[in-house]
C-alpha cells in the first residue's frame, strides 16, 4: 500500500496483440516472491489483525446464536405460519450463490481459455469453499431438530426407512455436498504446485513439514504435469455443468412447489445467473481491498477487474430480464393468484425489500457500462457491495413475499426477523471472513504456477496462436521447430 506503482494501462484493446496479464517487469522469481512473501513475512500489517479480531468475534456470535437456537428451539426465530422460511433459507441461497463465481472462474473460464483467470482463480475458489461452508450451516440448523440431520442421507438404518428422493430438498443435499466435495478437490489439485513452492521456500522446520505434507511431495515432474493437466481439464469439464446444476437444484426447492411466486420454469437459469452475478460482485468486493492491501496490482491488474465488471454487468442484465419475465408471465398466464403475488411483491407490505432489490440489482450495475467505473477500484467496490445487498434481498423477496399472503386472506401474516436471526446472519459473515483471512495468511493466494504459464517468458510472445493447446503456457514456436524436423 505504501508504494503505489505506476503501471501501464492494460485495458486497451490492440488488434493482433494480447494485453499483458502481469505488469511491472516481473519475472517468474518475482511473482513467487510477491505471492509467497504474504505467507512468509513474520507479521502482517495491523489491519489484518483488526479484521481478524472482528471476524473472530462475529464467528463467536454465530456459535452463540446457533447454540441458543439448539437449546431454546426454532421459536427464537421470527418464523411462524404462514412464513415458514425466512432468514435461514435466504442466507442459504445467498451463500451458495456467492460460491458460484469461484467455480465459474476456475472451470468455465478455463474451458473458454480465458487466460486472465489465472490471477484471480485461487482467490475465487477459496471464496467458493468458504461460502459453501457458510451455506451448509443454514439447512442444517433450520430443521428444528438438527441432531437428526443425518437422516437426510440414505444409509441403512434400524428404522428401515429411506429418504424421499422425490423431494427437491433431498436433491439439495446431494447437489450441495457434491458441489463442496468437487470444489475442494479442484481447489486442492490446483494448489499442489504452489504448496510445493511454499515447502521449498520454507525456512522453519514446522513450515517444511506442514507444507511438505500438504503438497504431497509435488516436485514439478514433467510426467506428473502431463497427468495433472489432463485431470485439471477433466475436473473443469465436470465442474462446469456442476456449477450450473447446483443453483438449478436450489431453485427446484421453490420451482417444484405449487406456490404462486415460486412455481416457475424460469427459476433454474434465473437462479444461476443471479448466483454468478452475486458471486462476481463478492469477488470484486473482496479482491480490490486485498489487492491494494498486499500490493498485488501487478498480478491482479486493472484488466482483471474490468473483465469481472463486464461479467457482472452481463449477468446483471440476465437477472433484470428474469425479473421482467416473472411479471410478464404473471400477466400473460391470466392466473389471478400469480398476478396477486407479483403485484403484492412490488406494492404490498414488503415493497421496501422489492425496491431495494430493484435498485441494487437492476439500476446499480448499469454503472458498469462506463469504463471509468469499471476501471476505478473503489467505484467497483461500491457498486459490488450494492449488488451483494441486492442479491440478498432478492432471495428474501422471493421467499417471504410468496409465503406471507397465501390464497386465504385470514392466514396472512408479516414476518420480522428476531435478533437471533440477525445475529446468525452477521455471524455467518464472521465465519466467512475468518476462514478467508486465515487463507490469505497461510495459503498461496494467487495460483503462481498458472500465472507464470501466461507470462511472456513461458513462450507466449513468440508467435500467433495455433488454435490448440491454448490453455496454460502454450509454446507456439515449438510446433515450428518440430516441423523443421530438428532432431539430432
Amino acid at each position, binding site marked *: 500500500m505504501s508504494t503505489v506503482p505506476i503501471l501501464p494501462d492494460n485495458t486497451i484493446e490492440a488488434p493482433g496483440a494480447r494485453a499483458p496479464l502481469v505488469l511491472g517487469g516481473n519475472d*517468474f*522469481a518475482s511473482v*513467487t516472491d510477491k505471492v509467497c512473501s504474504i505467507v512468509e513475512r513474520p507479521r502482517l500489517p495491523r489491519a489484518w489483525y483488526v479484521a481478524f479480531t472482528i471476524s473472530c468475534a462475529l464467528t463467536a456470535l454465530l456459535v452463540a446464536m446457533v447454540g441458543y437456537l439448539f437449546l431454546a428451539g426454532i421459536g427464537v426465530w421470527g418464523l411462524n405460519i404462514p412464513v415458514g422460511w425466512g432468514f435461514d433459507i435466504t442466507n442459504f441461497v445467498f451463500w451458495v450463490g456467492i460460491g458460484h463465481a469461484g467455480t465459474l472462474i476456475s472451470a468455465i473460464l478455463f474451458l473458454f481459455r480465458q487466460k486472465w483467470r489465472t490471477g484471480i482463480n485461487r482467490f475465487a475458489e477459496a471464496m467458493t469453499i468458504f461460502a459453501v461452508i457458510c451455506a451448509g450451516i443454514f439447512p442444517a440448523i433450520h430443521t428444528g431438530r438438527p441432531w437428526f440431520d443425518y437422516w437426510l442421507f440414505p444409509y441403512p438404518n434400524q428404522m*428401515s*426407512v*429411506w*429418504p*424421499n*428422493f*422425490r*423431494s427437491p430438498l433431498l*436433491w439439495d443435499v*446431494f*447437489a450441495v455436498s457434491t458441489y463442496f466435495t468437487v470444489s475442494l*478437490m*479442484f481447489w486442492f*489439485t490446483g494448489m499442489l504446485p504452489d504448496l510445493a*513452492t511454499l*515447502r*521449498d521456500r520454507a525456512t522453519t522446520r514446522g513450515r517444511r513439514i506442514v507444507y511438505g*505434507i500438504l503438497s*504431497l*511431495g*509435488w*516436485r*514439478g*515432474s*514433467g*510426467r*506428473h*504435469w*502431463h*497427468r*495433472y*493437466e*489432463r*485431470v485439471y481439464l*477433466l*475436473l473443469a469439464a*465436470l*465442474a462446469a*455443468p*456442476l456449477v450450473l*446444476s447446483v443453483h438449478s*437444484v436450489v431453485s*427446484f426447492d421453490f420451482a417444484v412447489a405449487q406456490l404462486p411466486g415460486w412455481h416457475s420454469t424460469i427459476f433454474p437459469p434465473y437462479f444461476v445467473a443471479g448466483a454468478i452475478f452475486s458471486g462476481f460482485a463478492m469477488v470484486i468486493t473482496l479482491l480490490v481491498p486485498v489487492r491494494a492491501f498486499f500490493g498485488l496490482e501487478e498480478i491482479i491488474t486493472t484488466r482483471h477487474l474490468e473483465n469481472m465488471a463486464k461479467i457482472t454487468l452481463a449477468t446483471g442484465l440476465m437477472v433484470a430480464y428474469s425479473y421482467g419475465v416473472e411479471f410478464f408471465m404473471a400477466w400473460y398466464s391470466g392466473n389471478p393468484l400469480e398476478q396477486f403475488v407479483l403485484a403484492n411483491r412490488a406494492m404490498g407490505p414488503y415493497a421496501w425489500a422489492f425496491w431495494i432489490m430493484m435498485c441494487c440489482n437492476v439500476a446499480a450495475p448499469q454503472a458498469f457500462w462506463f469504463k471509468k467505473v469499471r476501471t476505478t477500484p473503489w467505484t467497483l467496490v461500491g457498486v459490488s457491495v450494492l449488488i451483494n445487498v441486492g442479491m440478498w434481498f432478492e432471495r428474501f423477496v422471493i421467499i417471504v413475499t410468496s409465503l406471507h399472503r397465501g390464497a386465504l386472506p385470514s392466514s396472512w401474516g408479516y414476518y420480522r426477523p428476531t435478533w437471533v436471526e440477525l445475529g446468525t446472519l452477521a455471524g455467518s459473515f464472521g465465519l466467512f471472513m475468518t476462514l478467508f483471512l486465515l487463507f490469505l495468511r497461510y495459503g498461496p493466494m494467487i495460483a*503462481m504456477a498458472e500465472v*507464470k*504459464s501466461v507470462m511472456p*517468458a*513461458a*513462450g507466449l510472445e513468440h508467435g500467433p496462436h495455433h488454435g490448440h*493447446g491454448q490453455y*496454460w*503456457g502454450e*509454446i507456439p514456436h*515449438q*510446433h515450428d521447430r518440430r516441423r523443421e524436423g530438428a*532432431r*539430432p
Partner: protein
Amino acid sequence: MSEPTAVAVVAGPRCWGLLAEFESVDTLLAAAERVRDAGFVKFDAFAPFPIHGLDEAMGIRTSRLPLVVLGGGVTGACAGLLLQWWTNAFDYRYLVSGKPYFGLPVAIPVTFELTVLLAAIGAFVGLVVANRLPELYHPVLHNAAFQARATTDGFFVAVEAGDPRFDVARTRSFLEGLGAVRVDELEDD
C-alpha cells in the same frame, strides 16, 4: 549418443542419477527431446509450471486417466439410478402425493450429482495414485539448486542411474553438451 558401453557400475551404489539445470523453457524442451532421442527411458523433466509440448518432447504416452474418470462417471450414474429405484420403489414403497414410486425425470438431479461426484473423485484419486503421491521423499528434493528454483523459476532434467544407458561420466558430458548450466550427482539414502 553412440551405443552405451558395457562399463560395470562406475557410480557407487548410492548414486541415484544426474540432475541438469537449464535456463529457460526453450532449452529445457530442446534438452528433453535430445535425452529422449538418445534412448534414455528413466528420465524426467521438472518445471515450475506446466509446459505445453513437454510431454511430447519427453515422449510420454498419453495418460489413460480419462478412462478412470469415465469409469467413475458411469459408476456414479448407475449407482444413482439404482439407489433411488431400490430405496423408494422397491425396498420401502410409500406413496407421496400420488407420484410414481420411481420416475426418470425426478431421478435426474441425484443421478447427475452422483455421476459428477464419482467422476471427479476418480480424477482426483487417479491423479494422486498415478503420480505415486504422496511421496514425501525423493532424491531430487535434496538438491540445493532444485530446492531453490525447481518450483520457482528453474528447469531441470534428471536421468536416473537405473537407466540402462546411464553412465556417470558420459551422461554428465552429454547433459552438459545440451546446454545445462549445471549438472549435479544425486545420491539416494
